[in-house]
């Protein structure tokens, strides 16, 4: 009998604010320990939290993108537990009345679309950081992260494979970055994915789940879930039982391991935070946020296919990030939309390829949209051929200037002068009498050889269309 896999994800997205959720301390990454932790963040007695307005707008934006119910009245609660990096003894979070209610996100795996339920998204504060081993026998506490605004996005247990789970996580990752509400940096912990994994026989109630935490790449999330599914099935088939626990992924050995902390009962004794009043979100606020939303990735992809005539694949690559899509649209605009397919091809092979090779992001690319458009315009007006453009692109990438400057300084201008091309053709034909004989004797594939020789003789600069035309005319004389 087969097993059914049930996965639900909890994603913590750190919101891109300037300050903490309840204080005016900066949340800039990488500061010296405790230099961004004010009396509110360190939990001094008598301090009162004041809610940051930016977190409301950003949360509502995600809610709208997920077609979710927006909590018109949302309440903060205290989640009580003791740990040194949580100085107040409770985490301010939301329990019964989250800011975002039920919504959905559509994913696609192997060409099959599936709608995944989003249970809720609630606001909460991050804890500080415990640093072990810095001082022997003691734990150091850095509270810079304490109070950083997080939006915890909880999915329904609708995911039924590691692939689906990763597709959902990636889609959410793309969405929060498009919306500009989270920078998506998984290394710095701005986007954290916790997976609840269980297995059951079809038709049976849900099995006991294990939670996989602290995995900071999509590839490892997939591998960890796959391992965990196997582990649970083997355990159950050999008569064992799954224990509800948190497990960590060991990427070196590709296994998950029990976290082995002293498991306190999950009894957080939530109650409404008396220091914070309910947050009311008006219809006008929601409308204003809705009006300020950027085009979402799915809509963008559909538009690229319908309006630009691009393939699904090309549209997918070009909308892979908002920066990439905006760069592409800017190039299309600057080239007057004359040859969108050419723009797309150069974005995907030339630009994307160069980014990957150098491990750069769109923002750090040495070639700007202006430079890219400048080069494409020279292809369109026949100043350079596609082949020479590769040379120009590489030179632009190496910081040698704009396309026009490079074409000028390297003398790469395409030869379109008929007389000049005729001279080249004559020269090549005169130097290859036996090949000409062979061609005339029926070996038509010699044509390619001649074209190659002529292009070579021109340093790659002859216009290939004209070369073909003139060559054929000469050979049929």
């Amino acid at each position, binding site marked *: 009998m087969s097993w059914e896999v049930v996965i639900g994800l909890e994603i913590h997205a750190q919101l891109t*604010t*300037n*300050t903490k959720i309840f*204080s*005016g*301390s*900066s949340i800039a990454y990488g500061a*010296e*320990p*405790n*230099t*961004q*932790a*004010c*009396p509110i963040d*360190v939990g*001094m007695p008598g301090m009162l939290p*004041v*809610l*940051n*307005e*930016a977190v*409301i707008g950003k949360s509502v934006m995600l809610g709208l993108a997920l077609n979710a119910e927006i909590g018109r*009245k949302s*309440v903060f609660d205290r989640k*009580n537990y*003791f*740990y*040194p990096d949580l100085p107040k*003894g409770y985490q301010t979070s939301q329990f*019964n*009345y989250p800011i975002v209610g039920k919504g959905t996100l559509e994913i696609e795996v192997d060409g099959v679309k599936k709608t995944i339920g989003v249970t809720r998204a609630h606001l909460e504060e991050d804890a500080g950081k*415990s*640093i*072990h081993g*810095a*001082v022997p*026998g*003691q*734990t*150091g*506490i*850095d*509270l810079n992260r304490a109070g950083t605004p997080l939006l915890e996005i909880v999915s329904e247990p609708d995911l039924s494979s590691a692939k689906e789970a990763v597709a959902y996580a990636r889609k959410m990752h793309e969405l929060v970055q498009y919306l500009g509400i989270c920078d998506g940096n998984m290394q710095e912990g701005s986007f954290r994915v916790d997976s609840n994994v269980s297995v059951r026989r079809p038709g049976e109630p849900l099995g006991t789940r294990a939670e996989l935490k602290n995995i900071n790449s999509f590839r490892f999330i997939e591998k960890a879930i796959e391992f965990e599914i196997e582990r649970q099935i083997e355990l159950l088939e050999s008569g064992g039982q799954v224990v509800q626990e948190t497990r960590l992924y060991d990427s070196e050995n590709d296994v998950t391991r029990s976290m082995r*902390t002293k498991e*306190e*009962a999950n*009894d957080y*004794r939530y109650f*409404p935070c*008396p220091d*914070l*009043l*309910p*947050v*009311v979100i008006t219809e006008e606020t929601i409308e204003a946020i809705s009006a300020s939303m950027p085009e979402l990735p799915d809509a963008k992809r559909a538009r690229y296919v319908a309006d630009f005539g691009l393939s699904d694949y090309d549209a997918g690559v070009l909308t892979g990030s908002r920066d990439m899509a905006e760069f592409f649209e800017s190039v299309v605009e600057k080239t007057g939309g004359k040859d969108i397919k050419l723009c797309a091809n150069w974005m995907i092979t030339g630009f994307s390829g160069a980014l990957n090779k150098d491990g750069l992001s769109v923002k750090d690319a040495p070639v700007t949209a202006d430079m890219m458009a400048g080069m494409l315009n020279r292809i369109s007006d026949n100043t350079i051929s596609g082949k020479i453009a590769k040379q120009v692109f590489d030179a632009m990438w190496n910081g040698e200037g704009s396309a026009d400057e490079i074409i000028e300084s390297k003398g790469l201008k395409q030869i379109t002068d008929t007389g000049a091309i005729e001279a080249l053709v004559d020269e090549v034909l005169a130097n290859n009498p036996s090949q000409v004989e062979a061609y005339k004797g029926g070996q038509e594939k010699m044509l390619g050889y001649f074209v190659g020789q002529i292009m070579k003789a021109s340093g790659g600069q002859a216009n290939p269309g004209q070369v073909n035309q003139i060559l054929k005319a000469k050979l049929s004389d």
Partner: protein
Amino acid sequence: MSLGKTEVEYISRLAAIAVEENEVDQVAAKLSNILDLFKQMEAADTEGVDPMAHPLDQVQRLRADVVTEVDQHEKLQSIAPSAENGLYLVPQVIE
């Protein structure tokens, strides 16, 4: 509703409040009284009444997302039991 010794011990552990052995009975009785009060309140008809999240019938004011706090860690750490290299120090937490 009355709480027993085990429950008092469990709650005191969760709340990190030390309850001496000889206080357990007294604390159990007090907590049970509070629960009895809730029991009485449950009898009230709350049909159609929105749950109250806060005794003040007001709405949360929001703060602009602007950095207003400055670094005060030396001051704050001067009253901490132990601090070094900018870190607050606590007894080792075994992971």
